[in-house]
């Protein structure tokens, strides 16, 4: 039988050292007795150190479990260490009773640590040094101060502070953290900020929605005695019903005299659709308020065309995509990138062309974490033709280019597929329309060869359009 005595302070380091030596010497768990402080048996000398490797997960688990008050923790951890030499994957099996037990101990320590970081309350101490001084008294369930003091040091680095607990203390002076033995509860001087904090706590509370069980499960009563705000809780509860009753029974009051004038002034200055549309600018402002179909309810915004008002060429796509919808500009997403490349290859300057879409709102369906494009239907395209016609009326382009089937339908009224029509100019009642592929179609083509061909055709068509309007 191997008896190991662990000191009252520094037992974490002592356990790690002893466990490492015992494991290296292949001492079986059932042959070890762990004791803290004054034990029944005289400790035996430890075997010499040897190499022992453990998974990283065990180091983290042991660090947490060692802070627990359960006297069995040392033996349980050593048993796990012993088994790990034969079962490297042991910790990945949550169904193993030993792993479940250790995880439960670690969970309890982690929760206690989290509550410590939450519920420590500092009071300021008098002083005239360059650094302000604070102190706190806290009573954790487990021996967790050493584990958590570095957190407070990282956070409250520009002040000196002390945290006292019944078992341990931590002091932070001029950036140096030291640890010492615990102490009985000290008398800390009152702190004026506590009254303001209580004011905040009582007023941020909504008396109309009492959920006591939720409060107690997250802030158990055992912590209340060291929380200044908890003193307010009984009075808050006692008054809650009355406050709700007052709200309920109060008659609606007359608005202050100035309210109507303020509302009227603000509403008068809000952007509105113009009464008449006499210019491209009017059309743009009116389109921002468009409700001609239901797409406006779900899209971010109307995406109006962009370019010079006297452009000789107008390029019409299908509808804004995800990126265009967010940015409020046409052809700025992936499809816009394809179009930009093709225009550059065709020697065409983007800023000489009016770029727009047949449908001005993004149509989509949410799927997973993304918005999936949906093709606008005929009714939506028909409703939006009103805006496309206004753009053509005010810009008077010499040629309009339709990219994709939706634009082709919107501009020619003909729903026939693009396969046979691409690259041609069709005469319509409102002027010539050239047809080509939509850049999104090119992006969706799975076959690389077909995509390259379509890309070349788009470039070719753009070059031809440039020649026609030159």
């Amino acid at each position, binding site marked *: 039988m191997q008896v190991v005595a662990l000191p009252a302070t520094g037992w974490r380091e002592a356990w790690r050292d002893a466990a490492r030596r015992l494991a290296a010497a292949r001492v079986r768990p059932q042959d070890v007795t762990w004791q803290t402080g004054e034990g029944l048996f005289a400790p035996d000398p430890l075997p010499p150190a040897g190499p022992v490797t453990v998974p990283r997960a065990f180091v983290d688990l042991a660090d947490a479990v060692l802070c627990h008050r359960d006297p069995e923790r040392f033996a349980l951890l050593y048993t796990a260490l012993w088994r790990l030499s034969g079962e490297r994957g042991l910790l990945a*099996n*949550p*169904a*193993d*009773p030993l792993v479940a037990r250790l995880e439960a101990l670690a969970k309890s320590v982690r929760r206690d640590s*989290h509550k410590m970081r939450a*519920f420590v309350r*500092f009071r*300021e101490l008098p002083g005239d040094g360059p650094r302000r001084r604070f102190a706190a008294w806290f009573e954790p369930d487990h021996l967790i101060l050493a584990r958590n003091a570095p957190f407070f040091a*990282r*956070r*409250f*680095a*520009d*002040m000196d502070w002390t945290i006292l607990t019944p078992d341990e203390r931590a002091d932070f002076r001029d950036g140096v953290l030291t640890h010492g033995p615990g102490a009985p509860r000290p008398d800390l001087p009152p*702190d004026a900020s506590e009254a*303001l*904090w209580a*004011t*905040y*706590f*009582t*007023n*941020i*509370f*909504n008396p*109309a929605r*009492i959920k*006591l069980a*939720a*409060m107690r499960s997250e802030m158990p009563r055992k912590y209340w005695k060291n*929380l200044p705000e908890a003193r307010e809780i009984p009075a*808050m509860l006692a008054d809650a019903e009355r406050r*709700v009753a*007052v*709200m*309920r029974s*109060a008659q*609606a*009051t007359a*608005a*202050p005299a*100035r*309210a*109507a004038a*303020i*509302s009227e002034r*603000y*509403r008068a200055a809000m952007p509105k659709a113009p009464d008449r549309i006499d210019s491209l600018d009017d059309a743009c402002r009116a389109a*921002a308020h468009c409700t001609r179909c239901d797409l406006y*309810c779900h899209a*971010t*915004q109307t995406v109006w065309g962009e370019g010079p008002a006297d452009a000789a060429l107008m390029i019409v796509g299908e509808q804004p995509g995800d990126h265009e919808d*967010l*940015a*409020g500009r046409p052809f700025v997403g992936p499809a816009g990138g394809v179009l930009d490349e093709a225009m550059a290859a065709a020697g065409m300057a983007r800023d000489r062309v009016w770029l727009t879409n047949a449908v001005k709102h993004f149509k989509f369906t*949410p799927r*997973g*974490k993304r*918005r999936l494009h949906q093709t606008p239907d005929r009714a939506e395209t028909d409703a939006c033709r009103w805006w496309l016609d206004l753009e053509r009326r005010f810009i008077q382009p010499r040629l309009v280019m339709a990219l994709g089937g939706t634009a082709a339908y919107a501009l020619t009224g003909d729903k026939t597929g693009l396969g046979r029509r691409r690259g041609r100019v069709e005469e319509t009642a409102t002027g010539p329309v050239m047809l080509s592929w939509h850049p999104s179609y090119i992006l969706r083509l799975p076959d690389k060869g077909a995509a390259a061909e379509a890309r070349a055709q788009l470039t070719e068509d753009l070059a031809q359009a440039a020649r026609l309007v030159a």
Partner: protein
Amino acid sequence: MREHYIAGMSQMTLSRKLAILSDAAKYDASCASSGTERRDARKGGLGSTEGAGICHAYTPDGRCVSLLKILMTNFCIFDCAYCVNRVSSNVERARFTVDEVVTLTLEFYRRNYIEGLFLSSGIIRSPDATMADMVRIARTLRVDHGFKGYIHLKTIPDASPELLDEAGLYADRLSINIELPQDTSIRELAPEKRPETIRQAMGRVHLTREASRDRSHTGKRPASFAPAGQSTQMIVGADRANDAAILSTASRLYTGYGLKRVYYSAFSPIPDASAALPLVKPPLMREHRLYQADWLMRFYGFSVDEIAGVTPGGDLDLAIDPKLAWALANRADFPLDVNRAPREALLRVPGFGTKTVARILSARRHGALRYDDLARMGASMKKARAFVRLPGWTPGALTDSADLRARFAPPPEQLQLI
């Protein structure tokens, strides 16, 4: 008149202002302080953020207090019917100075009362003037005081994009409230708010965040913009939108703008309420079910239609949770063989959370799981037992029994006006 207000205000104590301006802020549900970048004060300044948020206290309404959640002012020129601070309300008004907000934040922080500041505001003078003052507070905390704690700024609808861009440099999280699930309700109840500009602001924040994540061609990372992302809040029960409509809107917000959270806030009685809205008891259970449904959409692979489709009328079942309601309506998919089923199917078992499912997947590599193993690994077997099969356990006729729902649902209770 105006001079009178200002003279009166200067005599108001800090404590009185804090009482008014925290009371006015309590209808915002969010108090999250998690999910931002890691920072601390070892190289100067004060404060830290280390991933997980910390709730420093809980009030008797069960809500966590993580941040100093206050309004800069509750003077407001807008007239939103559901809001206690609307221009037509007779509520007592107050306004903090920049220094007062900064000092309260730092002094509360030093005593470990809070993780940081959640600043919102009524709209004074104009949206831009208000937003500029809020940005000034955030800048003072970050630049003048080296504050490394958490800052959440509620952006003002219709404030200029440049102010939004600056806000994102100092704030961990930006939010803008969608307020109501349907555009028509917003226009009706909040006539000064414009749903399209609210969405535009969300779109801008989303794009700016995405851009700040990209590495530029020089290999340097640009400043991270609103590292904890953006969130929004919808009031539940102030208009007639059903749960399907609410969840559809939430789903569009998550997918369109990459929101971190949509908060649902049961409409609750406010002092000096508008005659336009009913003073009913806040629909807390409905709010709770919406949060559960929201979780199912984000972490369990459910779609809005699956969740809201199992009850007629498009409202969630208040008596049982939405996952159980879905499972009861889809009993043909059960019982599930826990030792063989894929992750997506396990996530749909009532009583199994994401952590339980992860443990099941990990543990079953070491051998077949039995009934008792599941209970030990955190599964709620009271719910799950009717829907799973394991060596030594089969629910038999239980899965299809007519009274299965009754075993879970509490006895019906008459809902009352208060």
